[in-house]
Structure formats: structure tokens, C-alpha cells
């Protein structure tokens, strides 16, 4: 077992027992951290793995939250039933907006994705189709019901959100290990070479986008259920920037995303006593970080291939031993 797996397990144990020692305020902070971790993990597929500069993730978060709110308040759908649909609607929006722009590169794409999040926010503000409630948003969203257990208290949400984070980590780990994850890395490194090797670059970029949007949509469901009231201002451009910064700071590994979600959401709370200066301290820390560790906190380790070691061990490799 290596150091990073150990750190991950330790973090998991700490999180599992945290509610025993922490007060309600810190638990609610940690729910928030969990939501950002979830959003960070979903954006990590797009930005960290595939290197697509997408700064509009709050748009899909918003679509998921509003889909849940509308289904729940107008059509009495239970929250958990609305969750996959919220993801699907966010994914559908992602296909519609990403298809025409997916070939753009770097900063050009960044600017367009900023446009997306603004368009969604302003559309919500203008009460699209009479469903979104304008600037008042939607209130009276029901609580989720987990096989008869009604999730109401903050501590319930704490376990719900972090449980979802754990499941996401397992699934995204499988993805990272697979040909899909590798294809995204090839595209990040050199998309012309990737295409020349037989990787359908456009379709993989789009898949990454859609998958990330699906997950952000589901995170939106959790947010809507926890807050019971949502307004367009919860999904402004600043939200997108924070999610983006969480992934950039993380370096692209999943443990990194968790750590940087804590740093971004938890640290400002710790610094609250410095009130006005806290964002200054935070900004300074980010700048120092960019100077001394531009690759991010914890870049992903290279994947290991058992079968390759076995191949070399079998003596098929001529002469030299693997370093």
C-alpha cells in the first residue's frame, strides 16, 4: 500500500467519524465541501483528464438543481427519482451547447463556456417558460426519502453527499484506469497525435463533457434538496470559477480534488476571524502556489500495469531489466 492510498483511507475514516466531534456549523461547512468535491470530481474528468478549459460548470449544476426543483414542486416527483433525470437534462444541455464549440482550443473555449454559464443564469432570472420563478427562484422543494428514511437534518445530508462522493470516486477511478481515461489523457497531451493514433477526438471530448455535466446535474439535485430554495444567484459565474480553481489547484488527481475542495471551502471559514483580510490571505496563498507548485497539489500518479510487469518477468524482454 502506498502513501497516497493510505492518506485517502485516513481521510475517509476521519470523514466518517467527524460528526461525532464537530458541531452543526462545521458539519454544514463539510456538506458544502462535499458538494464542491462532487462538482470538482465531475469537472476533473473534463478539465483535469481531457484538458478542456471549461469554466461554465455552474451552468450544468444549475440545470440539475432547477430540473429537480421543477419536477419536485410542480409534479411531486421524489428527489431520488428526479436525480437521474436532472443529470440527463444537464447532459442534454451539455450536448447542445458543447457540440458546436468542442473543436475550440484553450482560452477560446474558456471564453465560450463563461458565456454558457451567464446565458443559463440570465435565462433563469427571466423566468424561462414561467417555470423558474425569476429572481425569486423556486422554494418549497421537498426532502429526499431514502427507502423510507426521511433525510432532513444536516448530518443526514452530510452522509448523503459524502456517500455520493465515495461512489463517484470509485466510478471515476475505474474510468481513469480504462482506455477511456487514457484517451482523454492523449487528447490533453496532443490532440493531433491522438487523432492520428485512431482516437476519435471529437467524440471523446464530447463524452467527457457530457459525463461531467451529468454528474454536475446530480450534484445540483443534492443542492436543491438540501437548500429547499434555489435562486439564479446561487449559480453565478463566481461558482464556476471556484469549481475551476478547485480542479486546477488539485493537480488532477481525485485525492487532490478532495484536498483542494477543503482548502477552498473550509479554509475561508477557518480564516473568518480575519474577516476582510481572509480573501487577501487566500489570494496570496494561491499566487505562491502557482509559483512553487504550478502542476497543482497532487498530480495523478502514472497508472501501473500488472500485465506489463509479468511480461518482462517472463523473460520475453531481451537482456536488460526494467528500471
Amino acid at each position, binding site marked *: 500500500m502506498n502513501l497516497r492510498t493510505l492518506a485517502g483511507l485516513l481521510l475517509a475514516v476521519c470523514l466518517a467519524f467527524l460528526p461525532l466531534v464537530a458541531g452543526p456549523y462545521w458539519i454544514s461547512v463539510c456538506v458544502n465541501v462535499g458538494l464542491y468535491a462532487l462538482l470538482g470530481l465531475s469537472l476533473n474528468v473534463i478539465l483535469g483528464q481531457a484538458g478542456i478549459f471549461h469554466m461554465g460548470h455552474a451552468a450544468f449544476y444549475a440545470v440539475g438543481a432547477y430540473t429537480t426543483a421543477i419536477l419536485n414542486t410542480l409534479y411531486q416527483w421524489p428527489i431520488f427519482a428526479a436525480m437521474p433525470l436532472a443529470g440527463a437534462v444537464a447532459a442534454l444541455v451539455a450536448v447542445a451547447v458543447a457540440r458546436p464549440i468542442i473543436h475550440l482550443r484553450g482560452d477560446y473555449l474558456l471564453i465560450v463556456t463563461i458565456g454558457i454559464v451567464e446565458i443559463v443564469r440570465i435565462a433563469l432570472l427571466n423566468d424561462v417558460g414561467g417555470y423558474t420563478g425569476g429572481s425569486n427562484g423556486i422554494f418549497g422543494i421537498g426532502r429526499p426519502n431514502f427507502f423510507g428514511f426521511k433525510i432532513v437534518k444536516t448530518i443526514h445530508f452530510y452522509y448523503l453527499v459524502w456517500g455520493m462522493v465515495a461512489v463517484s470516486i470509485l*466510478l*471515476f477511478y*475505474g*474510468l481513469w*484506469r*480504462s*482506455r*477511456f*481515461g*487514457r*484517451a482523454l*489523457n*492523449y487528447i490533453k*497531451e*496532443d490532440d*493531433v*497525435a*491522438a*487523432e*492520428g*493514433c*485512431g*482516437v*476519435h*477526438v471529437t467524440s471523446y471530448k464530447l*463524452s467527457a463533457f457530457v*459525463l461531467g455535466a451529468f454528474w454536475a446535474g446530480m450534484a445540483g439535485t443534492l443542492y436543491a434538496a438540501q437548500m429547499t430554495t434555489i435562486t439564479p444567484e446561487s449559480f453565478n459565474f463566481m461558482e464556476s470559477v471556484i469549481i475551476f480553481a478547485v480542479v486546477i489547484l488539485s493537480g488532477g488527481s481525485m485525492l487532490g480534488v478532495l484536498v483542494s475542495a477543503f482548502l477552498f471551502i473550509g479554509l475561508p471559514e477557518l480564516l473568518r476571524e480575519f474577516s476582510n483580510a481572509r480573501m487577501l490571505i487566500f489570494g496570496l496563498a494561491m499566487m505562491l502556489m502557482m509559483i512553487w507548485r504550478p502542476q497543482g497539489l497532487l498530480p495523478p500518479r*502514472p*497508472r501501473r*500495469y*500488472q*500485465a*506489463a510487469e509479468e*511480461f*518482462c518477468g517472463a523473460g*520475453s*524482454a*531481451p*537482456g*536488460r*531489466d*526494467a*528500471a
Partner: protein
Amino acid sequence: MNLLELHEVSKIFGGLVALNELSFSVEEGSVVGLIGPNGAGKTTVFNCITGNYRPEHGRISFAGRDVTGLRPHALVKLGIARTFQSIRLFGRLPVLENVLAGRHCRLKSGLLASMLHTPAQRREEREAVRRCMEELDFVGLAAHHAEEAGSLSYGNQRLLEIARALASDPHLLILDEPAGGMNDQETVALIDLIGAIRDRGITVLLIEHDMRLVMRICEKLVVLENGCLIAQGEPAVVRANPAVIEAYLGAESEVW
């Protein structure tokens, strides 16, 4: 039988006619060299065949099928693999994963199977890794499989590009200056390697400036100048062709 046929292919960049109604063919199982002075349009031909450029005019057919204008990834799937003149490896990824990139199009596991890590997906992965290790072994890089591709020597990076291309089970392998940056010893080894690739039944089309290599390994030469075909045929015949000697101004006997 002709594996690859170019029929009156033209490629125009702005006002420059890079290729002018170029026609030639590559017979299945042969090693064909594409030569010509700098700027003759050799790499442009490659880019048209591999789908990186779309010719303005003409037709390219591969294994009896019209493939003009197909995207590069689709052509790889049909069996055309290439290496790049300026090495384009995924420098920060391990050597093995670079080869797995070539294998990618032959694997089938989808998004869900990957996320759920199904037994079928794991089996396919193991098999792909084993196959890619064989290709690394074939070019002599198996021992380096875990190193970063960017840390390999220049000559080894070229070999890695060949292994990556071979991993896609190509019928036609297109090599753009495979000996570029190699020393004499490495070039000799490369000649043997190209011979071994041909013996596996893979057709090879290559651009090369190293005339010893071209003369040793190619069964047919195609000579370009200013985007036009000026000669083609067996190496011995082509080298005696006055138009070719003219194109290589002053190059004459000491190079050949």
C-alpha cells in the same frame, strides 16, 4: 494487387499548388519509398493519405475502397497507421501507454464497462497490454515500458512511434523520415526492422532522405518535385533517370 491508389490528387494552399494531379500506387506487401527534394510535397502526400488534409481534387482508394476525405481516426481503424516527421509522442505518459494509444481503436470497452470495471473490460485490458508489450519487444523497447516517453533518446522515440503505429494492426504503415536524427548504427538496425515489418505482411510507404536506407530496403521509388511526379519504378532505374538527377541538383553520384 494495389493496396493504396492515388488518382490525380491535388492539394492547394492559398495560391500554392502543393500537389498537382499526383497519381501513384502502392502494391500490397511491398516497401515503397517517396523521395524528392525539400518542399517537393512528400509530407503533404502523407497528410492527404492519412486524412490530416483533404485534397481539393482527386481520389484516394485503400484496399479497393474510396477513402478520400475520411477523418484520421477512421483511417487508422481501416488499417492505415503513421508516424510523424516531427516526433509526436505523448511525452509525459509512460512508454507503454503510448503504444496503448495505437491499440485504442481495436478495443471495445465503453464508458459504462470502464466505470464499472467489468470482468470483460479487465480481460480486454490485460490482453491489450500483453499485445502492446509484444510490439515494444519487437522494436526492442520492452524494458523501457514504464519510463516517460519524453525521456527516451531520439532514436528510441522514433522506434516507439513505430511500435505505437504497429499496435493498431495496420495493413499499411506510413513512415515519415523514420531515420531522421538516428546515427549510422541505429539506421542499420532500422533497415532490419523495416524488413521485419514487411515480413509480417505489412505494406510500408516511407519518406526518407537517407539514400542508403532507401536503396537498401525499397522495392519501388516514387520521386516528387514541386508537387509533380517526375519518376517512379525500381530504385536502380529511378537513380539513372536524368530528371531525377536534375532534381537533386549536384547531388549525383556521391549521394547515390
